[in-house]
């Protein structure tokens, strides 16, 4: 009995080890979903659809997909001036949110992996730390 448990645990730990990367992405996305609820949802809305001509969408957003650093920068330092998303020009202002680098990474992992968005390369706290104004 004991040996069965040991071998199951052994298998499980190998499995966990293999999944470690996906796992940390998963927990980052989970934390990011809470950040999204606290800081983003009132403008970018539950399904990332934004508000027409006022707040750009995040779901299926070509800007988010193609401008990884620019997106991190906007969340980290705020966003001002013209921004073209899916062919629509937005000229709004998003204040700096006061998030930690980890929170920025978490919410980036959430918005790039939710709705129909997919992102294979996880955004890390380190990557966010490197992004300058």
């Amino acid at each position: 009995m004991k040996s069965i448990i040991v071998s199951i645990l052994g298998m499980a730990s190998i499995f966990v080890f293999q999944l470690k990367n996906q796992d940390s992405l998963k927990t980052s996305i989970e934390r990011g979903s809470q950040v999204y609820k606290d800081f983003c949802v009132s403008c970018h809305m539950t399904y990332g659809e934004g508000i027409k001509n006022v707040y750009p969408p995040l779901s299926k957003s070509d800007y988010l997909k193609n401008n990884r650093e620019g997106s991190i920068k906007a969340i980290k330092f705020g966003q001002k001036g013209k921004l073209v998303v899916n062919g629509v020009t937005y000229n709004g202002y998003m204040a700096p949110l006061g998030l930690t680098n980890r929170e920025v990474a978490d919410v980036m992992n959430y918005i790039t992996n939710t709705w129909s968005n997919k992102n294979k390369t996880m955004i890390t706290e380190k990557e966010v730390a490197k992004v300058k104004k």
Partner: protein
Amino acid sequence: MTHIHSFLAIILMTLSACSQQTASKVQAETPTDLIYTIELVVPDLEIPWGMDFLPDGSILITEKSGELIHYRNNTKQTISGLPDIYVRGQGGLLDIRLHPNYNSNGWIYFSFASQEGPEEGGNTAIMRAKLNNNKLTDQELLYKAEPNTTKGQHFGSRIEFDNEGYLYFSIGDRGNRDVNPQDITRDCGKIYRLNDDGSIPSSNPFVGHSGAKQAIYSYGHRNPQGMVKHPETGEIYIHEHGPKGGDEINIIEKGKNYGWPVISYGLNYDGTPFTDITEKEGMEQPLFYWTPSIAPSGLSIVSSDKYPNWTGNLLVGSLKFSYLERLVIENNEVVKREKLFENTGRLRNVKQGSDGYIYIAVEGEGIYKIVPKQN
């Protein structure tokens, strides 16, 4: 597993589609005969959250990022001597208001998010100070809500005085909807009333109630970002953000419960309901509710002779739809709504200046003055 998820998602979406909301009783129209326009008076501001007018006509402006600006003779002067400001989410340096007897006592009141206290995070605080040589002096912390939280939402923060000289301010529910607003032993989700020196008036409604926060004047609020004394009746009018739908205008009465989140005309952001009821015994009905939400910020009631057709009308900034809303009220009911200056930008604040003109503060733009159109 994925199938189960998509199945659940479909059920949820169907359910949310079933939660129908009743739209506002009066719809906003675009005016066809507007005789006013706007003129930029203070350029290049980011989030001009609060403003007030000094006796010489110059303007004190708060930037949410934590800067206090004195705008005089077309020049911005940064005022030093602010306390440490907690800039996170909707928190930062927020409203500013001169004492009604500023000329004789020099007191300036302002609200901000503060980290003072043992817990991580911040909460809304009220301070008063005097302005001397571009510096704040004589700072006195009058109120600090507790506990701190790292949540980014709902600091409230508008400041107003009534005709008796009492100081009122709002603090939102701080993102803790189901715990704070209905509990008078806790801060947040409340309108507060203090004497102008920060002491608690003995006539406050919950003085003597065991455990109650004695500064509370009314409760059951979500996030009031507009507050003004009615120029005729002296009553305190507020508006507050709802979630998805259900923004409200309320007239504040002593000790009353305004119902959040037990009663509401709003839904969760994802369209699901959080309550089935919109009214309940012992809870106040709003004077008006907005569905869909306009995201109201800043509130003024016109009393000057510069806008004779607007006397007694409410002016409300819409963050979400980038216009100034004018509401005509007859017998305590909204009978007309108008969208003024559409596409101006996120409208954060509106106030009648000491010169009688109405000023509006727009995010990413600056402060505009409403003036008659030139023919």
